[in-house]
């Protein structure tokens, strides 16, 4: 019973994953519609990151199916990857390249022009003053901002964010929320792994709690998401769900 393509942004059916003898995921099923922003909660080791990495095509599920816009993450990796913006727990930057060079590398890999757009992205995340400095000297928060700038280049329809707020200051958290909300309003879906709800207040539609490798709970966010006018949202949603 595969739903028709692109009806759902993110979908998992009985996803299980084993590392050695340990079952980290024991059959997770969830669905995100286009435009939906969902927080993924759970204790350490509950399998949140593993689930995110499966959606991010970095791990294959041991059993079950994971889909991004109807594309199987284990089989149609190329189609999935062109939809994804993945922010891992580690920034994944090259320490000996400058901030701009890191973005340039990303742009070249994506087939994007590597010109003013890079500087604009760096300005947006507040790194305009260190464009030509090497990442090695950056603080953890600055590295996360740079990773965010790289994410912005992709204009992804699906955001997978693993504890995006860690190491960020208040302004950084606000920036992150702005970017997540923008993506949601444009009809993209976001799955955000969180260890506390506070920084994401007013951003999420829903929270899903993972416990012991299974979905334990799914409920509306305690602080409802701040939305633009409904008409715009409907239009954007329809556009995204094409």
């Amino acid at each position, binding site marked *: 019973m595969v739903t028709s393509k692109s009806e759902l942004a993110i979908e998992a059916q009985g996803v299980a994953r084993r590392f050695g003898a340990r079952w980290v995921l024991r059959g997770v099923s969830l669905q995100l519609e286009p435009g939906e922003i969902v927080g993924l909660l759970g204790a350490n080791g509950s399998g949140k990151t593993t689930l995110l*990495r499966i959606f*991010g*095509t*970095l791990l*294959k599920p041991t059993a079950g199916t994971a889909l991004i816009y109807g594309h199987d993450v284990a089989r149609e*990796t*190329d189609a999935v*990857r*062109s939809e*994804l913006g*993945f922010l*891992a*727990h*580690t*920034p*994944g*930057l*090259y*320490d*000996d*390249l400058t901030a701009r*060079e890191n973005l340039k*590398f*990303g742009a*070249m*890999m*994506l*087939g994007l022009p590597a010109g003013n757009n890079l500087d604009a992205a760096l300005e947006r995340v507040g790194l305009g003053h260190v464009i030509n400095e*090497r990442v090695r000297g950056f603080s953890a928060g600055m590295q996360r901002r740079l990773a965010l700038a*790289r994410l912005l280049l992709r204009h992804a329809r699906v955001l997978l964010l693993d504890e995006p707020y860690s190491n960020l200051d208040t302004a950084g958290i606000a920036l992150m929320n702005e970017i997540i909300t923008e993506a949601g309003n444009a009809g993209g879906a976001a799955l955000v792994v969180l260890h506390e709800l506070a920084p994401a207040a007013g951003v999420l539609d829903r929270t899903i709690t993972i416990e012991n490798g299974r979905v334990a709970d799914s409920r509306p966010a305690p602080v409802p998401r701040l939305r633009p006018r409904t008409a715009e949202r409907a239009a954007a949603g329809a556009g995204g769900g094409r």
Partner: protein
Amino acid sequence: MAFRDDVRRIRAIAWKDLTTERRSKAGFNSVAALGVTILVLFGFALGPDAQALRDAAAGALWLSALFAGVLAFNRSYQVELESGALDQLLQYPGPRWVIYVGKLIANSLFVGLMLIIVIAVGIALFQVSIPAAWPSLLGVFALGAVGLVVLGTFYAAMASRSRAREVLLPLLLFPMLVPVLLAAISASKALLVGDMMHEAGAWIKLLGAYDLIFFVATLWAFEYVIEV
């Protein structure tokens, strides 16, 4: 169109690897220094007799290059593993072999440069006189280096991400490189003494065939190795 995208990605990876390597000079310098050190140790092992040194020069040179090269191959993936960069690298769309080819280009330049230093030192230390057929000798070195780098880059993609990477890479790589070593050493040896028996040609052909076969095979197999 798609092909131009691939070429651009290959360029991006080679550029990124070389820039990183150039900025952390310590990496190249220490690998080259290790190559020279091993060469010196071979000199001690083979004794001060000039003729014995000359006879063993080709073998010592290639083994030094091999031992030093092994470090370079694992380093090439170290950059990707340090802060989870490989996760991001795999997230980009496009075929996986472009990652391999990009790294192959960067590693070839890296190992080629190291080889030049080791050869220069080796010629001096082992009292080798440069033969008239030195362009062929250069060709042998190029073909041998390519064989070394093709398999080294491929096996390091596995070894660098496993437990026991220090031992696993040489364990996998060295037996596979036996034909390269035999061919490169024999051909260099023959050319150094003037190739009286006309045997260098056969070895060069073998090297060329080896490089081609394993370049194609690793190109095909790389996706299976990097994707898990």
